[in-house]
């Protein structure tokens, strides 16, 4: 690996991910006596409850995502190529919109509904990982299992091979569930209250002169998140998520026989729960369905026209900031991913990359303010630059892990041969690794773009992020402008899915998003 490139990438990692966390760590270091305060029974109670929510959501994500991912990737379930992208919509939709939809339709509140919504919103991660892992199982293994005992034997053979990917996806589901506070708060607005630990972190920042305690309060959640990510790293290092054989043969779709129609119903049900119903509700509201006038195409068209007219600048800002952050992340992640896969510092570099993912958004946002609000950096602080750096810092971990996984799949002997032939490290990276990693780089780019388009928690603290469409959407929700808000939400969802859809349609290749 080129030292220049690696140093540049490490500088980006340090600047965007580690420095804001380091600044906040210094505040805690100045007053370490606050640490024991965070272990009082009340906060421990909240932490245990949050842990249960995370485990419950991850369990639901496994129950829904694992069979869905396997069915759409490996079987002859009707319309599999349609279900596969539609299954992702539940993750692309902001989880609060899912909560709003389902609390209207189902009379269930509190912990069960929160867990169900978080499980539904994150099952696509498990499905995606399962689908990718299932597509990597060699045809010969499957043929042998089929001959030995039919479909049940195939399932028995495949389950252990899929399990690492399923668990890896569940870890991410757990991570998203324990860090969300908007959904528990919204879902338990009526009936028994369901407070979670993220609430505590948010509230602690309101008390003056308690910065050290506020940072300390975040530590248990950071530890919990890192603990959830450790299995992912371990599985990745074991190679459990990588291609199985070098002379790989792609398997043919498995015939489900009579099971085809129940499988179709399952896929249809899941896509309805996560995509059709929430999107349908947004279309209903955008068309004036909740007003006295009733739904009409003219109202729908009017709501979209108004949303575009009033928020086109916000949508454009969101697209530009998210695309810039995704592009920077893609560039930095290729180098860091390669260093993790091939370098000697994997054990050190991996946790550092993951750290920003584990830090609560509010702490990360305040860290960026402390770091960048100086006279010399005022233009950068007030402009889009800080938004891009903040988004890069928040989500760099995802493309880095994906690229590290993709690099592992490239035979290192090819790089060694090129080195012997005189190719320098930069040339080797761009001539050998990057072309082979196209789907992984694109997958990482799309993932950062999607997450950046949805970002709100840290964005509320960064000046220029005010112009982003999600910020506008949440402000509009307050005013009960249901048609306008629904149209804007649909526009955001549309813009968010466009890059992934274009990649698949134009190049005919699937995105790689497995670490």
């Amino acid at each position, binding site marked *: 690996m080129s030292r220049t*490139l690696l140093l540049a990438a490490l500088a980006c990692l340090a600047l965007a991910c580690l420095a804001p966390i380091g600044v906040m760590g210094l505040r805690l270091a100045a007053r370490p006596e606050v640490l024991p305060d965070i272990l009082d029974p009340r906060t421990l109670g909240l932490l245990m409850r949050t842990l249960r929510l995370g485990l419950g959501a991850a369990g639901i994500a496994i129950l829904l995502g694992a069979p869905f991912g396997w069915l759409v990737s490996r079987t002859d379930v009707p319309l599999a190529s349609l279900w596969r992208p539609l299954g992702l919509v539940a993750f692309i939709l902001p989880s609060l919109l899912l909560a709003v939809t389902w609390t209207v339709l189902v009379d269930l509140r509190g912990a069960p509904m929160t867990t169900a919504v978080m499980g539904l919103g994150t099952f696509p991660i498990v499905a995606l990982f399962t689908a990718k892992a299932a597509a990597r199982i060699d045809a010969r293994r499957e043929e042998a299992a089929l001959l030995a005992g039919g479909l049940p034997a195939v399932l028995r053979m495949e389950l252990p091979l899929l399990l690492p990917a399923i668990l890896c996806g569940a870890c991410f589901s757990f991570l998203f569930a324990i860090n969300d506070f908007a959904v528990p708060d*919204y879902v338990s*607005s009526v009936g028994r209250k369901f407070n979670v630990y993220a609430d505590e972190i948010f509230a602690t920042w309101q008390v003056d002169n308690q910065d050290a305690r506020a940072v300390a309060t975040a530590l248990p959640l950071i530890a919990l998140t890192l603990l959830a990510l450790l299995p992912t790293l371990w599985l990745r290092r074991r190679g459990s998520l990588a291609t199985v054989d070098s002379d790989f043969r792609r398997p043919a779709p498995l015939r489900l026989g009579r099971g085809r129609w129940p499988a179709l119903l399952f896929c249809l049900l899941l896509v309805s729960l996560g995509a059709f119903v929430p999107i349908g509700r947004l279309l209903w509201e955008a068309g004036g369905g909740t007003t006295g006038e009733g739904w009409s195409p003219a109202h729908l068209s009017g709501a979209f026209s108004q949303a575009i007219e009033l928020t086109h600048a916000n949508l454009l800002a969101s697209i530009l900031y998210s695309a810039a952050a995704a592009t920077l992340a893609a560039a930095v992640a290729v180098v860091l991913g390669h260093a993790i896969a091939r370098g000697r510092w994997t054990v050190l570099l991996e946790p550092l990359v993951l750290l920003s993912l584990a830090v609560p958004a509010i702490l990360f946002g305040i860290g960026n303010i402390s770091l960048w*609000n100086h006279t010399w950096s005022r233009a950068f602080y007030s402009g889009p630059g800080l938004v891009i750096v903040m988004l890069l810092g928040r989500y760099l971990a995802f493309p880095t892990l994906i690229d590290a996984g993709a690099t592992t799949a490239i035979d290192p002997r090819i790089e060694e041969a090129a080195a012997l032939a005189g190719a320098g490290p930069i040339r080797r990276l761009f001539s050998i690794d990057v072309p082979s990693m196209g789907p992984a780089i694109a997958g990482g780019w799309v993932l950062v773009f999607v997450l950046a388009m949805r970002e709100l928690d840290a964005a509320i603290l960064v000046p220029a992020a*005010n112009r982003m469409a999600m910020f506008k959407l949440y*402000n*509009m929700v307050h005013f*009960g402008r249901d048609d306008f808000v629904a149209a804007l939400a649909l526009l955001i969802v549309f813009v968010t899915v466009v890059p992934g859809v274009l990649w698949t349609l134009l190049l005919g290749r699937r995105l790689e998003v497995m670490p």
Partner: protein
Amino acid sequence: MTCRTTPLLPLLCLALAACGKPPDLVVYVSLDQVFSEEVIRDFEQETGLHVRAEYDTEASKTVGLVRRLIEERESPRCDVFWNNEVAQTVRLAELGLLSPYDSPSAADIPERFRDPQRRWTGFAARARCLIVNTDLVPPEQTPRGMDDLFDPRWKGRCGIARPLTGTTLTHAVALYDVLGEERAEAFWSRIAAGQSDETPQVNVVGSNGQLMRLVASGTLAFGFTDTDDFNVALEKGAPVKRVFPDQEGEDPLGTLLIPTTVAVLKGAPHRPAAERFVDWILSKEIERRLAFSRSAQIPVRDDVPRPEGVVLPAKLMDVSYVSIGMQMEARTKHLTELFLRAR
């Protein structure tokens, strides 16, 4: 492009992203964006000044802009803070973040809405009110005050926002100020204690806006919110009516009035423009416009024209905004412990 220049691409992207036209004035606005951005746009047109306005979100009240102002204290970049309430402004004043400015436009604003040291000025107020769903609540059962929240007939059908942010936090602290420690503590403890019940007597929701939507949709029968939220529901055609709480009886508690506040920041980078903005925003004309807007802000000056429904409650809660602001820190901590419990 050679391979050697490739690593510079990300840095080039960042440098380009950092470019932008510098503003003549930076205003942090926690008054709702849909109401305030039009006013600020008019100020720009009238004065030719380029204003950078940065807004708060409904969900992040307090933690968003106030936190940012505190974090930026060493190197202030905001000139004016236009807050939708008063307690957090007092808190900033007490932290030494605000600079005195005695605006000539504020000369006729009643003294109770102005800081004695002129670090902030209140105007265009909102009142805490009960929003009542008229389909669910017969006229003879209309709630009249905060004690109606505990009426068994409304068990599980009334609500209030969690008193940890925004105007509900101000309301909570004001009750400690006017009712005294014991009665206020009993009131909030009773609400908090009920949260572990399957059907709590009083539902505690995320925000005033959410409470308004729950009542407007008929999920709840009534609850506490602000007059601007009530007005939004009314304009949407929801079956709701407004009740100013605690107006009746021998010595009624009265309704809490919460003025919008405006303040110049200490070390404001564009001080002359900041003063010009404060003079402009405190004018009677802007207060009139805010009264006729969807937020239906209540003018604090008697001679400012207003729509028919935008009225001051007959009996106002007798509070000291400075006192409320001074108690915010300790009360917030206590209320957090009271309301954020795992049950």
